[in-house]
């Protein structure tokens, strides 16, 4: 790493667990406030002020939870794979820790997307589960998360676990577009999609603005929980470093 001079300075700083721990600590309150404000405001807006859908009625309001969680579940996988790749190539410990922290968050968001999708399906399609292309893809994404987490917990050595998971996450990342395409294609083959959950021809502004607020709120929430997990992971992995000992004993 020492001889690749073209890397910017912040990249090296980011590579320092201590710096990362401190900067996360400074950013956390801001992100927490932003996440709470956006999520609470967005939810109120979505539940009270947004108009009901002319076709689906009030069950449409589930979209404000379903879509953000689905987007985040996918972004989270992307971040996990990219962080894993950085850890693999530049042997950057912090990147490994980011990747490890991503998996449970992404899996829980995938669960939320699946559950809200299923619940929304009941009033819309009349059954709790439909093999809709998007829901099926999300289910497979959830499986991919489970695989990553299972592999990570099965390998004892931390650095080996991080590297192996990174390879798996990258393989998954290459596969996600293929899986999405094949599932969509399979879906149209078997049941001509008459009515999709989230596809609206043109959503009026009073519907999509709260959706946007919720998506940004979810991103902020994701940042908060990721930083919290990351800080824990840094403490655990760096427990023998001098600065961690000082930090712990100073309290």
């Amino acid at each position: 790493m020492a001889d690749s001079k073209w890397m910017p300075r912040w990249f090296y700083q980011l590579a320092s667990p201590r710096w990362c721990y401190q900067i996360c600590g400074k950013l956390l309150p801001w992100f927490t406030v932003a996440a709470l404000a956006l999520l609470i405001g967005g939810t109120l807006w979505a539940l009270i002020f947004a108009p009901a859908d002319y076709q689906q009625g009030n069950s449409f309001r589930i979209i404000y939870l379903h879509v953000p969680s689905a987007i985040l579940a996918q972004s989270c996988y992307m971040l996990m794979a990219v962080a894993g790749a950085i850890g693999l190539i530049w042997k950057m410990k912090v990147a490994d820790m980011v990747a490890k922290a991503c998996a449970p968050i992404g899996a829980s968001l995938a669960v939320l997307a699946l559950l809200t999708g299923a619940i929304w399906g009941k009033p819309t399609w009349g059954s709790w589960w439909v093999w809709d292309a998007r829901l099926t893809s999300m289910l497979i994404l959830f499986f991919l998360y489970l695989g990553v987490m299972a592999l990570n917990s099965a390998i004892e050595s931390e650095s080996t676990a991080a590297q192996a998971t990174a390879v798996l996450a990258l393989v998954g990342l290459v596969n996600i577009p293929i899986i999405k395409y094949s599932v969509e294609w399979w879906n149209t083959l078997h049941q001509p999609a008459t009515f999709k959950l989230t596809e609206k021809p043109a959503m009026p502004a009073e519907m999509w603005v709260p959706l946007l607020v919720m998506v940004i709120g979810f991103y902020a929430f994701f940042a908060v929980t990721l930083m919290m997990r990351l800080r824990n992971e840094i403490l655990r992995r760096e427990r023998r470093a001098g600065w961690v000992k000082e930090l712990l004993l100073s309290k």
Partner: protein
Amino acid sequence: MSFNSFSEFLSMGGHGLYVWLSYGLGVIIILGNLIAPLQAGKRLRAQLTRRLIRESKGS
């Protein structure tokens, strides 16, 4: 405001069960994702501090 009364708001035009179930799950998963790392962090700090104190006494 798309509701005239609170009971109308609760019933969500007959879809109350689905909407409130979804939002309930959303709250649970979001709070879970905040509380779990918070608790884990507390446990970890306590555990590491105990170990540090034990080691400093031992040597």
